[in-house]
C-alpha cells in the first residue's frame, strides 16, 4: 500500500467524508501506523502551533494612537520616509509568478508601465502578476487548482472548497520560517498583529501569510453630498427612517437608486445592514455551549423579509438583483447612493471620485440607540506559496516582507505612489498623483501582502470623520462565537454553505419565493454541512472551556 493511500485515508477521517472510515479508526490506524485524527485532534494540533511573535515596527508615531479595542491609529501627515532595505530583496532570483485578485481598474502591462518596471528593479526580479477581477476570482482559483499548474504565490479566498486540504497538500509549509521568533528574519511580517495569524494555521502548520485587516470591517457608505442636497436625514434613527432615506434618494426617472446588490449581486449588503439593526449574530452565537448560526435566527429571516420589501419598493438599481454592477463606479457617478464596502473603501471612493463620502451607522430596528457592527475578518485572504525548496520559500517570504513595509518607509511610498516626480509630486507634505501615476500605480500588490492599515495620512477632516465613525462603531462590535475555534467542515465546506444561504436569500428578495422558503434553505444548509460545523464547533468549545 502506497503512502498516498494512507494519507488519503487520514484525510477522509479528518473531514469525516466517509462515515464508515470514521467509524473504524482503529482499523485504519493499524494500516496507517499512526493514530487516527479526529476533528478535535486536528484542532489541538493547530492549537499547538507557535504563532509568529508580534514585534510592532514603531519608528513612526501616529497622531491618534490605536486603541486596544481596535480603533485604528490615525495620521494627519506623512512622516519623513526612511529606507528600510539597503538592497533589492530578491536580487538575482528567478522571476516570481503571482496570482491575485483585482478590485480596481487593470493597470497597463509591465512593458508599458514605468511603475511596474521600477518595481521589478527595486525587488530585484520580475514580478509576473495574473490579475482576475474580484467577482470571478473564486472561479479562477478553483480552476487553477484543478489544472494543477500553480504560480509561486497565490491569494486564496475563503470560499475555496476543501481549503485546508488544498493548503496542506499543494502549498508550502511555512512553519519553520515564521513560527515564534523565526519571523524576526522578516521584520515587517512580524509587524502583522497576532490576531491575523491563527487563521493561517492548518494541519498543525502555518501555510499562509495574512493580509491584515482591522476589526471595524465593512462600512455602509453613503453619498453625504446627495443626502444633503435633498435635505434628507443622514442619520436614520430606526428602520422606518432608513427606508424613508432610501426612498428619498431614489429617482427612477433620472436613473438614481439607493442600493446596488453588493459585490456579489445578491443583496447581501442590505440584508446584512438591516440584520445589524435587528441584532443578527455574527456568523455564530453561543449559549451554554450550544451554537446557533446566524441563518437559524428569526432576526436573519426578518432582515431578509424587510430587504425583500425594499426591493419591492423600487429603491434598488433595476439590474442590482442577481447582476454584477460596477458599484464603485456607479457610486462615484451618483447612480447609487449607498455602497457597502470594506473600511479601506472610504479613502478609495473619496480619492477616486469628486464626492463626499459618509458612513451610516445601523440604528436599532425600532429605534433607541445603535444596532450592532459585525467584526471584520482579520485577514483579507491567505497568501500561500507553491511547494518549493527552502531557498525559494525564503525568497518569496522576503518579497512579502518587502511588500509589507509600513507607512514611514520609502518602500511604502513607492508601493502606494510610485516614483516621485513621475507618478506623484509632494505638495504641502502629501503626495499628489500625476496622470501617469493614476493609470500605472494600479498593480494590486496590496492583495499579495500588505502592512497593517492605519487611518490617513489624509487631511484632518477626513481622518477625524473616519476616527469618529470607528469610535462610535467599535463599542457595538459583535464577534463570532466561533472565533478561535477550529472546524474542518467550516473551512472546507464554508464556500458551499455560504452559497446555499446566499442563493436562497436571493430567491426571496428577487420575489421568486415567499419568505417561508427561507426555512427550506436553512434545512438544506443544515443537511449540507451546517450541522456538521455546529457539532465540531461545540466539541472544540467544550474542549477549550
Amino acid at each position: 500500500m502506497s503512502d498516498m493511500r494512507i494519507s488519503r485515508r487520514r484525510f477522509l477521517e479528518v473531514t469525516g467524508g466517509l462515515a464508515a472510515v470514521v467509524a473504524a479508526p482503529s482499523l485504519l490506524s493499524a494500516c496507517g501506523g499512526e493514530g487516527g485524527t479526529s476533528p478535535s485532534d486536528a484542532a489541538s494540533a493547530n492549537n499547538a502551533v507557535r504563532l509568529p511573535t508580534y514585534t510592532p515596527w514603531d519608528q513612526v508615531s501616529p497622531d491618534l494612537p490605536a486603541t486596544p479595542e481596535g480603533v485604528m491609529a490615525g495620521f494627519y501627515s506623512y512622516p519623513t520616509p526612511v529606507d528600510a532595505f539597503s538592497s533589492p530583496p530578491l536580487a538575482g532570483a528567478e522571476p516570481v509568478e503571482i496570482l491575485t485578485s483585482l478590485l480596481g481598474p487593470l493597470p497597463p502591462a509591465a512593458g508599458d508601465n514605468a511603475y511596474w518596471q521600477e518595481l521589478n528593479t527595486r525587488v530585484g526580479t520580475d514580478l509576473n502578476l495574473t490579475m482576475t477581477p474580484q467577482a470571478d476570482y473564486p472561479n479562477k482559483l478553483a480552476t487553477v487548482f484543478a489544472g494543477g499548474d500553480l504560480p509561486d504565490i497565490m491569494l486564496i479566498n475563503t470560499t475555496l472548497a476543501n481549503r485546508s486540504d488544498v493548503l496542506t497538500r499543494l502549498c508550502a509549509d511555512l512553519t519553520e520560517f515564521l513560527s515564534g521568533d523565526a519571523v524576526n528574519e522578516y521584520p515587517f511580517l512580524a509587524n502583522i498583529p497576532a490576531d491575523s495569524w491563527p487563521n493561517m494555521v492548518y494541519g498543525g502548520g502555518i501555510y499562509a501569510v495574512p493580509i491584515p485587516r482591522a476589526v471595524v470591517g465593512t462600512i455602509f457608505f453613503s453619498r453625504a453630498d446627495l443626502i444633503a442636497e435633498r435635505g434628507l436625514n443622514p442619520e436614520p434613527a430606526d428602520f422606518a427612517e432608513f427606508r424613508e432615506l432610501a426612498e428619498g434618494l431614489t429617482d427612477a426617472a433620472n436613473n438614481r437608486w439607493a442600493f446596488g446588490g453588493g459585490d456579489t449581486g445578491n443583496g447581501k449588503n442590505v440584508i446584512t445592514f438591516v440584520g445589524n439593526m435587528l441584532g443578527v449574530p455574527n456568523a455564530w452565537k453561543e449559549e451554554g455551549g450550544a451554537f446557533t448560526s446566524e441563518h437559524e435566527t428569526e432576526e436573519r429571516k426578518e432582515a431578509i423579509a424587510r430587504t425583500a420589501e425594499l426591493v419591492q419598493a423600487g429603491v434598488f438599481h433595476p439590474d442590482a438583483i442577481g447582476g454584477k454592477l460596477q458599484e464603485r463606479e456607479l457610486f462615484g457617478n451618483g447612480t447609487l447612493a449607498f455602497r457597502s464596502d470594506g473600511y479601506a473603501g472610504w479613502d478609495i471612493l473619496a480619492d477616486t471620485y469628486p464626492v463626499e463620502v459618509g458612513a451610516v451607522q445601523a440604528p436599532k430596528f425600532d429605534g433607541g440607540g445603535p444596532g450592532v457592527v459585525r467584526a471584520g475578518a482579520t485577514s483579507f485572504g491567505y497568501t500561500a506559496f507553491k511547494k518549493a525548496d527552502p531557498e525559494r520559500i525564503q525568497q518569496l517570504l522576503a518579497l512579502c516582507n518587502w511588500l509589507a513595509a509600513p507607512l514611514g518607509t520609502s518602500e511604502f511610498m513607492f508601493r502606494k505612489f510610485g516614483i516621485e516626480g513621475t507618478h506623484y509630486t509632494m505638495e504641502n507634505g502629501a503626495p499628489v498623483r500625476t496622470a501617469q501615476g493614476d493609470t500605472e500605480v494600479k498593480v494590486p500588490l496590496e492583495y499579495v501582502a500588505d502592512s497593517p492599515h492605519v487611518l490617513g495620512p489624509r487631511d484632518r477632516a477626513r481622518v477625524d470623520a473616519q476616527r469618529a465613525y470607528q469610535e462610535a462603531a467599535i463599542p457595538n462590535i459583535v464577534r463570532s462565537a466561533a472565533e478561535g475555534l477550529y472546524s474542518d467542515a467550516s473551512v472546507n465546506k464554508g464556500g458551499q454553505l455560504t452559497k446555499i444561504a446566499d442563493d436562497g436569500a436571493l430567491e426571496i428578495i428577487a420575489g421568486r419565493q415567499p419568505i417561508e422558503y427561507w426555512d427550506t434553505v436553512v434545512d438544506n444548509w443544515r443537511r449540507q454541512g451546517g450541522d456538521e460545523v455546529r457539532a465540531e464547533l461545540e466539541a472544540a468549545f467544550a474542549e477549550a472551556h
Partner: protein
Amino acid sequence: MATELETTSAAGRDPRPGRWRRLGLGRGTGRGAGTRGGDGAGRTHGAGPAGAHGPRASRRVRFRRDRFLLLLGVPGLLVVLLFNYVPLIGNVIAFKDYQPYIGIWDSPWVGFDNFDVILNGDPAFVNALTNTLVISFVQIVVVFPVPIALALLLNSMLSERLKRVAQSILYLPHFMSWVVVVAIFQHMLGNAGLLNNFLRSHDWATLSIFGNPDMFLTLITSQVIWKDAGWGTIIFLAALSRVDMELYEASAVDGASRLRQLWHVTLPSIRGVIVLLLILKLGDVLTVGFEQILLQQQQVGADAAEVLDTYVYFNGVIGGNWGVSAAVGLVKGLVGVVLVLGANKVAHLLGERGVYSK
C-alpha cells in the same frame, strides 16, 4: 463536404467487397439524377476504383499502393487519439472519489456511488436536467430552422453586392464572445438598459426582460439566433448553390410558381444536408450554451437557469464534488451518442444518407 469525406473513408475501410459493390451500384443508379448524390457517388468511385472494376485487391496490395497516403494520415490520427481519445480515460473519475490534490490514480474507487444523484433523482439534478431538455427542445424546434429560412432568403436576393453585404453583417455576431453579446443585450434590454430607461423617463411601464425567469427561455433563444443564425447559413448556402439550375428551368417551363419550386426543387435538393446537420445537432443537444447561461444565471436563479453544464461546473469545479460531476457529464455524453446513433438509424430507415452511409 464532410459527408463525402466520411463516405469515402468509411467505404474505403470496408473490407467486404460485396458490400462495397452494392454501395457503388446503389449510388450510381438510385441517386444519379440528384446533383449532390451523383457527385458523392462519383467521388466514392474515384477513391476506390477497384470497387468498380472486378474483385477488390488484397489488403497487402492495397497497403503497398496507399502507403504514402496512409503515412500522411498518421499525424492526424495521433492528434485525434491524443486529444480526443486519451482524455476519455479521465472519465474514470466518475467511479472514484476524486480530488485534484490527490490525483486520479490515488483516489479511491467508489463504484456507482457518484451516480446516486442520477439514479435517486437529486432535486437539483432533476431541475438541471428538466431545464436542459426544455432548452434543447426549443433550440431544435425554433433555432435550427432559422438558418435554413435565412439561407433561402439570402439565396433569393438578386443583387450580388447586396447579398454580400447582408451576409457579412449576419456573420459578424458569430465572432463576438458571449460576454460581449450578453453585455449588448443587457445594455439594450436590461432593466436599466436603453429601452427601459427610455420608458421610465417617459413614465411608461417598463418591460422586465432580464431577471425575469418567465422570459429567460425567450431571451437566451433570441440571443442564440442573433449570434449564430447568420453563421449557420453558410453550409445551407453552399448546398443551395449546387442545386441544378436546369431543374428550375424545367419546373418554370411546367408553370411552377416560386413557392412550388421551393417545395419541389430547392428543399428536396438540400434535404440531405438538413438531415445531416440535424443529426449532428442532436449529438450535442444537451450542451445548451454553458457560457451564455452561466453569465445570466444569477439574475433569474437556478430554478430557471440551471442546466447540466452549469450543474457540473458548480458542483465539480467550484464545489469540489468532482466524481459526481464527472458521472453527470459521462451520462450526458452517453445520451448524446445514443441520440446520434438513433437519429442516424431513423434517417437510414427513411432512405436518407445520415452521418455515414450504410
